């Protein structure tokens, strides 16, 4: 199946019961698949009048207790932005699949690139952290989408799947029985009798109650206190802003997903993510056959940045090479974390995947 179908099937496996979206290449087939899968299972699948509306439908449905998915590509994620800010700041769980295409702007509908990595992280007001997961193949699309739902439920936040045209629209065979699927996590429901919709431990998301339940619920996009009413109290504001950061950063190590292949006696570590990781691993295999092995780290959680994993993996290497299917959106985070270490970078943004031969050349020549 395509990566996009795998996202849809992963969502279904995670218990997704609401989808709203708007067609856009190369993400449309997620919508098509959800439209086939949700009705027979009693779920709801809606085409919004535009991307902004699709996000609004998702926000409404999520607040009524649904597990929601939406899917788009670069031009749509731009339109999602104001609603994404709402979902982040007001702790509305949802999964957003961004099947990236070559930007900027309308760019190329059928050409891939990891165009939106920084946009997903910073494309909201306030700079509150988000979770971004990057699949490498169709199987990852399935498993990471399940994982994304779990994180959305636990942390009450939007979780992005940073897919790519080259994954979303490429059909691949895979054996689902070859992986262990994550056990499902559901949002914590409030059980007391004094519900304040945003009252929470300083490192946690608040317990949830749906709009439409016995207890009255307030949801607001405005700066709010625990009671969900607008506040201008600097202490309350500061505590909430801090909590929005801490709830993710405190769990950073636990939600750091990656694959590494650290070989003794190698002096170069190649860091990559998404579709590019596959070419990196091909390159590493060929180099090993040629007697010049390198180590690899393939990141699946991009945000929050898996700092400990990167530090630990890179600790014993003289040289780190970062390869991205853009002109350098993630390498600065790696340079920041690795301080003075020598970090080479190769990026390509021309609508085609970076081939293993190019990666070998970069590794060889720097």
């Amino acid at each position, binding site marked *: 199946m395509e990566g996009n179908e795998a996202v849809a099937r992963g969502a279904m496996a995670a218990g997704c019961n609401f989808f*709203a979206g708007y067609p856009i290449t190369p993400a449309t087939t997620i919508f098509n698949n959800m439209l086939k899968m949700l009705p027979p299972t009693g779920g709801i699948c809606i085409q919004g009048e535009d991307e902004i509306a699709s996000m609004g439908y998702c926000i*409404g449905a999520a607040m009524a207790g649904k597990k929601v998915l939406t899917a788009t590509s670069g031009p749509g994620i731009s339109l999602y932005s104001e609603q994404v800010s709402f979902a982040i700041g007001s702790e509305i769980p949802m999964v957003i699949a961004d099947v990236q295409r070559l930007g900027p702007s309308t760019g190329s509908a059928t050409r891939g690139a990891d165009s939106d990595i920084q946009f997903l992280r910073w494309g909201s007001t306030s700079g509150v952290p988000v979770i971004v997961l990057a699949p490498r193949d169709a199987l990852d699309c399935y498993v990471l989408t399940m994982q994304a739902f779990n994180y959305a439920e636990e942390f009450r936040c939007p979780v992005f799947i940073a897919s790519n045209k080259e994954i979303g629209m490429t059909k691949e*065979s895979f054996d689902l029985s070859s992986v262990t699927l994550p056990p499902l996590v559901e949002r914590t429901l409030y059980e007391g009798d004094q519900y304040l919709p945003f009252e929470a431990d300083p490192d946690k998301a608040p317990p949830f109650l749906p*709009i*439409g339940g016995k207890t009255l619920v307030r949801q607001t996009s405005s700066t709010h206190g625990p009671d969900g009413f607008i506040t201008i109290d600097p202490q309350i504001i500061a505590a909430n802003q801090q909590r929005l950061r801490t709830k993710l950063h405190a769990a950073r190590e636990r939600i750091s997903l990656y694959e590494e292949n650290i070989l003794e006696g190698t002096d170069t570590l190649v860091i990559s993510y998404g579709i590019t990781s596959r070419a990196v691993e091909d390159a590493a295999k060929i180099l090993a056959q040629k007697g010049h092995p390198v180590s690899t780290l393939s990141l699946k959680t991009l945000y929050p940045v898996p700092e400990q994993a990167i530090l630990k993996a890179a600790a014993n290497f003289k040289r780190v090479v970062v390869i991205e299917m853009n002109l350098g959106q993630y390498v600065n985070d790696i340079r920041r974390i690795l301080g003075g270490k020598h970090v080479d970078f190769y990026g390509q943004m021309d609508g085609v995947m970076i081939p293993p031969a190019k990666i070998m050349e970069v590794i060889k020549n720097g």
Partner: protein
Amino acid sequence: MDSFLNKSRPLVFCPGCTHERITKGLDKTLIDMGLKADKTVIVTDIGCSGLFDTFFNVHALHGVHGRALTYAAGLKLADSTLTVIVTMGDGGLGIGGAHVLAACRKNLDLTLIILNNFNFGMTGGQYSATTPSDAVVGSEFLNQAEIPINICSIAKSAGATYVSKCSGHDTQLPDELAKAIRHKGFSVVETLGMCTGRYTKRNNLTPKVIDEMIANQPVEGGVVEGNQRPEYGELYRKLAGEKTRFPEALTIERSFNIVDPQRQEVVILGSAGMRIVTAGDIVCYAGIASGMNVSIKNDYNITVLRGQSVSEILLSPEKIGYTGIESPTAVMALSDEGVQRRQKIFKTLSPETVVLKEKSIAIPETPARVIEIDFKELKIKRPDWALASLGVLAEKEILFSKEILAFALKSRFNEKVYDLAMETIEKMY
């Protein structure tokens, strides 16, 4: 219940503001209707109308400017038992115009109360989508160059099933709102009112003038007879309920053991209408049935009935990494458009690569082994060329055997199509 108003949140509107009357009017509506607080939700957006949700003891969702209807729709779709009331000013009306139109077209059971006070009160009295051209507002002369919209006539033409208009000072307001809420389907009530903080300072707008405005552009009735139709949620659930078959993922069992399997790359170069994608699928079926990992990507025009259609397939006993084509086993050149799309690969091919080329198709110079076939003479129609090419490969034991190809066709097609496909293929044997 004697009031839904939140006693710890007194109203904060400017003295004389019509919003205060509408808030109290809506409270009376909720009481009169005997609505349950836990089954009622007020959805608002930005501006003074966006304060409404804070005054009522019901569920509340306050969101981004102009988008209130989108949240309301999500809530109502997710929980059809809710009474969903949206308040929106003329600002949100302008910003969220597309959502208003969509709500009218969908006819989901929501009630939209538009609080039209002819300007953006909160930001300094700038002009909005409903500001008269001759009004004096905080936008200097800009409103003089535009005309205001008539939302009631727009809503009717967009398919709203209930539209009414009334003064915020009208004593009948609670009843008007109740009628709209009771209506099953999308209801729009345009209320006209005074923004005393901004608008009425420089414009002669009084309850009497508002009454005259309504008399000049009356909206009859409420229920729009010509637009009556089933409520969206009910219709959606009926239509969706008819879809009972869950599409299971395609699984193909490993059915053949092949000796010394090798990585294979296949490129099929054709045009729209030549069933290139289907041929690519069949190669994948054959690969999976032989225990290989497969990947396929297709490249075709967004105008799908014209232009090239290119399929690139990888088969590998190993997990597939890079999914690009590097050294193909076979390249099928079946149309000039397809060949042009990948013309650069021909000179990079190795002598071991087989290029299967239809006689009429020109290809660039290549070191590969070229096999030419005259499908026309064999009386094979162009839409079957890709399929027939697979037969040629099977005949020559390139990629897969005849047996595996037959298995792949059987897995891919129903019996009738399978028989036709076999007929075509066997012409190649």
